[in-house]
Each structure stands twice: as structure tokens, then as C-alpha cells.
């Protein structure tokens, strides 16, 4: 049983269910007029149902700007797939030095406008600066009804031509020339969701590790790709937004401080060089909200092996795992009843 003792210290398997029952629909309007030097990260309009809003963002110096966290909006037609998921519009404000507009793309209907504020972007800060909600409602749950989960699925298209390509060719090639120039045009038919990116469709072409969005012959922006511009050993693209993950996820995935989270992938960075060192986690980013139906695509019992004794399907509850949580589902109502952290 020595092993057991050691494991308890590592994992603390008690895993008391977090009864995330708070609802607290609210506007969630944050104040937080940040003018800090770290400038506004791509303020995603994501986390609705945040209890009563109206609080002031206390982290203004990190530059979140006018962070408004409205309701996430409809998640779109479930049959339409994940590319059309709720979450409203995010508009970048004036971003001074480094662009990176927060373009939520076609994420369905919803409110939640998030305006990135002004700010000099010495280094991209985490989007936690945009949290501007004060009252979190029912603290029985975390963050008043929603778990303190990862909601920033997408990071945003970066304006312009990737610096590397621009330097290489004195600008990005228009699609026609790119087609002749680079056999990578072979992927020209693939929309962002083909690449695992939660963005809407558009006129996209792959080139040299990036997905470029075109308007005619003009490059509007780009997204660095896992394994391409976001390959191991590469520096983090300067203007590519990233976010912090909640503490629980940081502990669950063992992230420490040197990581970047963007577009449903968590990357570890080398603490010395800041280059990408590995992928720490892949996430679905799916939202399980207590009191609501679970997302599509969780039909099979999938609880991690070591938790199956504790959380096994039965007449009183079903359990499903996603992104570090086990979710309890009521067999009768088919609604999420609780979200359970696997580490305490």
C-alpha cells in the first residue's frame, strides 16, 4: 500500500462533487477600463450565465479594456456542428501596437460583445483581464453557476500576413500565385474546422504552417497551426492570442506557469527560451452546464479507468468525462446534474 499512499498525495482521489448548481443568468457586464501596458488580449465573449454582472474588473492594468461578458448566446444548431457555436461577437478595439483582433467568427447567435481595449502590447497578456464580473452569484458552484472552466476556445485571427512569410516573400502571395508556388495549396479546400479550429468558414488557404484568410487576393489574416507555425521548438507567434486556464485545469494538466492555451490546445513552453516545448493537453472546449443538456457527442461511458469505481453508470446517475471533469447526468431528465473535479 505504499503506492497507494503516494498516489493519494498526488491525486487526492476523493473528488467531492462540485455541485455547480448556480444559475444566475446575468449580463455580466464588467467594467475594467484597462489601459495597461499589456494591452488587450482578444476579449472573447464567452462566459455567460455568470451570475449578476456589474462588477468592476479589478485587473484593469492588465489591459483587458472594456470587458463585457454577456451571455454566451445560443450554441447554434446542434446539427450544424461545432463551428457554429454560440458566443456572440467579439470586437477588437484599438489595439495600438499589435493587432490580434478578437474575431469570434460565426459563432452563432448571442450577445456578449467583448471589446478589447486600448493598450500597448508589450507582451500578450492572458484574457483573464477581461473577466470584469463582480458578483458571481451562488458560490456553491464556482463562478456562480458555471464552473471555472475553459471557455476561450478560439483565440482569433491575426491581422495581416504572417511575419515570416512576409519576410520571405515580401508579402503573402495571392491564392493564384500561391497555388503555383507551393504544392501546399493541396489543402486549399479545407476550412478552419477541418484543421480542428473552431472558426467559421471563409476563403482560407494553407501556407507554410499557417492558415491564411483571403479576401480576393488580399490576405486578411492568419491562424498558426499546430504542427506548423506552432511546432515544437518554434517561438510563440507574437500576435497569436493566448489565455490562462483556470487553476483547476492548471493543476489537473500539471501546467505550471509556462504554458499557452489557444484554440483548444494547451502548449508547454520552455521556461528559458519560451519556445514551444510540447502539447500539454488537447481539449474539446465543450461546455457542460448544470441544469442543461450535455453537448452532443457524449453517448458512451468514458470515465477514466481509475475513477470507474466511484463514478459508474447506474439507475440514479450517468457519468461522462470531458476536459478534466466528470459530469453527473440525471438519467431521467438527461440534464447535467453536477460537475466533479477529479483533483482536490
Amino acid at each position, binding site marked *: 500500500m505504499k503506492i497507494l499512499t503516494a498516489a493519494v498525495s498526488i491525486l487526492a482521489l476523493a473528488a467531492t462533487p462540485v455541485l455547480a448548481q448556480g444559475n444566475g443568468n446575468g449580463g455580466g457586464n464588467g467594467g475594467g477600463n484597462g489601459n495597461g501596458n499589456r494591452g488587450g488580449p482578444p476579449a472573447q465573449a464567452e462566459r455567460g450565465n455568470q451570475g449578476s454582472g456589474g462588477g468592476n474588473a479589478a485587473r484593469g492594468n492588465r489591459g483587458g479594456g472594456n470587458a463585457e461578458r454577456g451571455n454566451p448566446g445560443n450554441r447554434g444548431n446542434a446539427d450544424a456542428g*461545432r463551428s457554429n457555436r454560440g458566443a456572440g461577437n467579439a470586437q477588437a478595439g484599438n489595439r495600438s501596437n499589435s493587432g490580434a483582433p478578437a474575431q469570434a467568427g460565426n459563432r452563432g447567435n448571442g450577445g456578449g460583445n467583448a471589446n478589447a481595449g486600448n493598450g500597448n502590447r508589450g507582451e500578450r497578456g492572458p484574457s483573464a483581464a477581461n473577466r470584469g464580473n463582480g458578483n458571481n452569484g451562488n458560490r456553491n458552484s464556482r463562478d456562480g453557476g458555471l464552473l471555472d472552466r475553459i471557455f476561450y476556445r478560439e483565440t482569433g485571427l491575426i491581422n495581416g500576413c504572417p511575419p515570416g512569410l512576409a519576410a520571405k516573400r515580401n508579402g503573402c502571395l495571392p491564392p493564384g500565385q500561391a497555388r503555383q508556388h507551393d504544392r501546399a495549396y493541396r489543402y486549399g479546400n479545407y476550412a478552419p474546422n477541418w484543421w480542428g479550429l473552431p472558426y467559421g468558414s471563409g476563403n482560407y488557404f494553407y501556407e507554410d504552417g499557417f492558415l491564411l484568410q483571403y479576401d480576393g487576393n488580399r490576405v486578411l489574416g492568419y491562424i498558426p497551426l499546430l504542427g506548423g507555425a506552432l511546432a515544437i521548438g518554434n517561438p510563440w507567434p507574437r500576435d497569436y492570442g493566448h489565455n490562462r486556464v483556470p487553476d483547476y485545469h492548471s493543476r489537473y494538466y500539471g501546467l505550471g506557469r509556462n504554458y499557452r492555451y489557444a484554440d483548444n490546445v494547451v502548449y508547454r513552453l520552455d521556461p528559458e527560451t519560451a519556445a514551444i516545448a510540447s502539447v500539454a493537453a488537447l481539449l474539446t472546449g465543450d461546455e457542460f452546464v448544470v441544469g442543461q443538456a450535455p453537448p452532443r457527442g457524449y453517448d458512451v461511458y468514458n470515465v477514466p479507468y481509475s475513477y470507474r469505481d466511484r463514478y459508474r453508470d447506474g439507475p440514479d446517475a450517468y457519468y461522462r*468525462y470531458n476536459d478534466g471533469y466528470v459530469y453527473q447526468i440525471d438519467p431521467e431528465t438527461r440534464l447535467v446534474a453536477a460537475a466533479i473535479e477529479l483533483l482536490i
Partner: protein
Amino acid sequence: MTYSVKRTSLTAIAAALLTLTGCGDETADEAGSLAPSDPSTQSIAALIAEADELSMVEQLVEDAGLAQAFDGMAAYTVLAPTDDAMAALGDDFTGEEARPALIAVLRDHIVPGYLTSADITAAIESSGGPVEMQTMGTGTLTFAMDGDSLTVSSDGGTASAVIGEEMLGANGVVLPVEVVLKDTGVEAD
């Protein structure tokens, strides 16, 4: 680019986990939730590395930097295309330039959690028809029975395969498939 990943740490954790659960002889409970009878203490990264026909997926996992994720605490199930399946993708998916596309392909073969063949079969029987699981890409995989065979289909149903012999690890499951479960058709010139 090469790099090494320590797998011993997970192995130790896995051993601890197995001890903790103390259910190595579990089979099924009343509701049909299954605990695998004899999972390995290895990580899914190690299982993929040791499999004879998954060398291309292994290389891809290394190239993508996913080996650490597959060695970690979080549970994943990988529907791993065999080398023959990967080779059938053709020239468009060869060379370093193809790496992001191959990784995108792989993401659609990874589902969250610990998904055994028995779990999938039980879910199909319980629902009376095909069942779906979300992937780490943007789509879903659909599981169904074809006679006595458990099959999996890509999002949109463009590809399907019989699931091969499962490999149960400490932190996930590897389910070999002989077809790439993603639409990779490229528009003709």
C-alpha cells in the same frame, strides 16, 4: 526535430492508480458500465510506440509534441489508423509540409476519456443504435455494430472501419483502425 519524453513517471502513477482502484477484476456492474479487466500500466503514448502497425501515428505524436499529453494524467482514447491506412492518404500527406494536416487528421481520431470496446458496445445496445463521441477536432465519430463487429465512422460517414483489438492503458485506450476517419478529399484542379 527529436526530443525525448520520460515515460517512467506515468508508469509509476499508473501503477498507483491501479492499486487505488483495486478493481482489476471488474467486469460489469448492473447498469452495464464496464471496468476493463486487465488494463496495462503503460501510457497510451507507450502503447502506440510499441504497436507494430502504428509507427506513423507514433511519429506523428512525437512530431506534434503530443507524447507528453499522452503520457499524462488526462484520459484520451485514440482511434489509431494503421500504417497502411496512413500511407493510403497519398502524396498530399507526405513530407514535413504535411505535418499540420496530418495532425489535424489525428485530432479527429482522439476522443476524451477512457473508451473501451465494451463501453461502446454497451452504449450501442442501450441506445438501440449508433452512438457518437466528440473528437479533439471539430467533429464526432459514430460507433455502430455491423453484425458482431464494432465499427466506427467518420463525421459525415465518408469513411468507416472495424475497430481492431483494443489496447487498454493506464491513461487511455488505443483502438486501431485500418482506415483514416476523416474526409481528406482535395478538390481537383
